[in-house]
């Protein structure tokens, strides 16, 4: 009797384990994203996309997300809206529980679809600043300092360097929606601090800015330049300002003017002292990058490409890290199967996630989908970007007030 009961119990446990084990072990969690290796921003794409896939490879090498394999599908869209829509629909059909949206116009176009389909989309570096507000945009996650936060942090840095009432600040920006986005914060802060502010628009494609630079250096005689440029424009701005004799260590650039490629195009000698913001740390000395180099490349006997550890590559690692962390929290809190809505809740419960110093101390809540809006100032020294501050942010009240106001409409 006793033995029979024990046997039954043992059998039941064995059966339960046998049934549960394959279900647990063989579960593959699908995430996806788009990439741009041939389109308008291919210079960024060829480094940012491998960053993401390498990080996912690292996660899988270490046993996946709580034992489940992450399957990441990358779809090339060439920075075209229709291909981006197609890519999203394909990922959705294949069961992706979260996606990375790549490219400002594509992010805009896919936002309503994310809201309809209840699949969260992360948009680090591309998304619109007002989608920070998670109550209005529950399925959109900027997950990195938006242009508003970047403007706030840049001006905070300038203030920490001794700017006071009457300091002349020139804001040079790319004349498209993404480029103009920082203006409201810059204006609000300049008014609050009593800076003299002038705005200088650079029309696309932004390869000609002689007149603006002469205006900045000769007529306006700016003390600081805050640059928000894309593509080839940052390199041109560095060259032109240098030629006009403007000190590079008083030129602060938003994140898309702060890659190695931007300085390479202008010349490393020219760019010495130039300051750029980063929303992820960069360089090969970081623990997570070291781990990727060891486990994804050396262990496989592969040669480490030159771009590993570069600025854009690091941003790709950030994309991968956030996707993996969101999925991990979804599995941990809600178990299987993973759904888009659970991953959203997973993202919203990210707390002090910094990936061994690689990321700012990110805390995402259902109100704040930006993760705090931290950036770090880097400066060009020699042939690399060197951090000169810790993670900083500034004028958070102004930024959050603007977010609130933008979503009230």
């Amino acid at each position, binding site marked *: 009797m006793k033995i029979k009961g024990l046997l039954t119990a043992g059998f039941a446990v064995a059966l339960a384990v046998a049934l549960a084990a394959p279900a647990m072990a063989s579960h593959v969690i699908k995430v996806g994203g788009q990439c741009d290796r041939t389109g308008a921003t291919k210079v960024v794409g060829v480094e940012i996309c491998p960053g993401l896939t390498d990080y996912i490879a690292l996660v899988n090498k270490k046993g996946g997300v709580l034992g489940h394999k992450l399957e990441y599908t990358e779809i090339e869209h060439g920075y075209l809206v229709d291909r981006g829509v197609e890519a999203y*629909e394909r990922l959705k059909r294949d069961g992706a529980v979260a996606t990375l949206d790549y490219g400002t116009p594509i992010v805009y*176009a896919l936002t309503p679809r994310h809201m309809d389909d209840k699949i969260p989309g992360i948009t680090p570096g591309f998304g619109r600043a007002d989608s920070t507000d998670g109550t209005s945009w529950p399925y959109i996650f900027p997950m990195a300092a938006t242009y508003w936060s970047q403007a706030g942090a840049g001006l905070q840095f300038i203030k920490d360097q001794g700017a006071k009432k009457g300091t002349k600040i020139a804001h040079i920006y790319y004349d498209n929606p993404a480029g103009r986005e920082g203006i409201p914060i810059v204006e609000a802060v300049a008014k609050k601090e009593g800076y003299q502010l002038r705005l200088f628009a650079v029309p696309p494609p932004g390869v000609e800015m002689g007149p603006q630079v002469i205006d900045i250096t000769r007529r306006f005689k700016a003390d600081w330049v805050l640059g928000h440029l894309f593509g080839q424009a940052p390199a041109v701005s560095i060259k032109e300002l240098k030629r006009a004799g403007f000190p590079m260590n008083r030129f602060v650039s938003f994140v898309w003017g702060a890659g190695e490629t931007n300085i390479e195009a202008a010349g490393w000698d020219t760019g010495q002292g130039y300051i750029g913001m980063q929303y992820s740390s960069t360089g090969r000395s970081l623990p997570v990058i070291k781990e990727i180099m060891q486990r994804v490349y050396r262990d496989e006997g592969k040669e480490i490409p030159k771009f590993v550890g570069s600025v854009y590559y690091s941003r790709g690692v950030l994309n991968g890290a956030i996707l993996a962390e969101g999925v991990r929290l979804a599995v941990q809190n809600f178990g299987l199967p993973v759904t888009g809505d659970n991953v959203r809740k997973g993202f919203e419960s990210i707390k002090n996630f910094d990936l061994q110093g690689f990321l700012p101390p990110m805390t995402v809540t259902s109100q704040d989908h930006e993760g705090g809006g931290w950036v770090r100032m880097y400066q060009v020294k020699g042939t690399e970007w060197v951090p000169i501050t810790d993670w900083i942010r500034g004028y958070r009240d102004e930024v959050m007030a603007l977010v609130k106001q933008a979503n009230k409409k």
Partner: protein
Amino acid sequence: MINRECGVYQTTYEGDMALYPLPLARYSTLAVVVVLALLPLVLDSHMMSLANLMLLASIGAIGLNILVGYTGQVSLGHGAFMMVGSYTAALVTVRLGLPFWLGLPAGGAVAALVGAFFGIPSLRIKGLYLAIATLAGQFIIEWVINHSPWISGGVQSTIYVPTPTFLGWNINNEYRRYFMVLPVAIVAYVAAMNLVRSRVGRAFIAVRDRDVAAEIIGVDIFHYKLLAFAVSSFYAGMAGALWTYYLKIANYEHFTLATSVSYLAMIIIGGLGSVLGSVFGAVFITLLPIVLVYVVEGGAALFGFKYAAIADFLANLRLIIFGGLIILFLAIEPEGLFRMWGNVKRYFRLWPYSY
């Protein structure tokens, strides 16, 4: 369709003037429409999104072909006219609360007005010079929309529109969006087919073939050139408005110069001066890059390559193949896919008794 006129005798003027005078053509066209209507039963949502993108591109391409292919006025401003339609639709929906089926003609009408205005230079200049004048139109419209908050809705130049509804039916997935786009595309196609064989269409063709001669035989050049711009821009505006409702957002970055150029590519590959050719071209340019994704990646996997390892190479290889195929098709048949289709039809017209 492959039709044989053998044994068909028209006894009425109506029969002779019908869009498809042959019974077989009528049946086959009807069959195509039925197949199109039944597609959602067999395709998944991803395939439906492809169908939608092709239909959207077809509407715009038909419009551009009326202007470039039939009237002979080269335009590089088609994207801008789509942009006008797109923002008009967004504004009338958001500000006035109009439903999408009123927003569509509104977008078309405003785009037609703007298009006719930017068509005025065509009265004095032709060919490449006109292309540059319309290029200016592209940049002017883009700049104005981008810098007028009243039109563009703020610094982001982006207007979200609510989910379009039809008789209480929320158009919120790819299947439903298909039934929003398909009827418009069919109406656009039939209207264009009829337009080009009407008095107006013949006047367009006369202007294209030699405008001086057309003027001498009594075609009012001023009238018909501007009309061509207006009709073409109406199509563009409708397409742009549909894009707005399809994406639920109006954003000028979908309709830049690159869009204008890709629509020109569609009608050149499809066949200038052919409505069906515009559709072929739209399908070709929309579908080919996406099909190549599967073909090239599948091919690489067949040879044992991992996607991640050679992603950059594959991305560029696809572009090379895409460009190569365009050149190949144009080299085989400079008059486009429509002409190829015509060749096939001609071959089977007397088959198997061809001489």
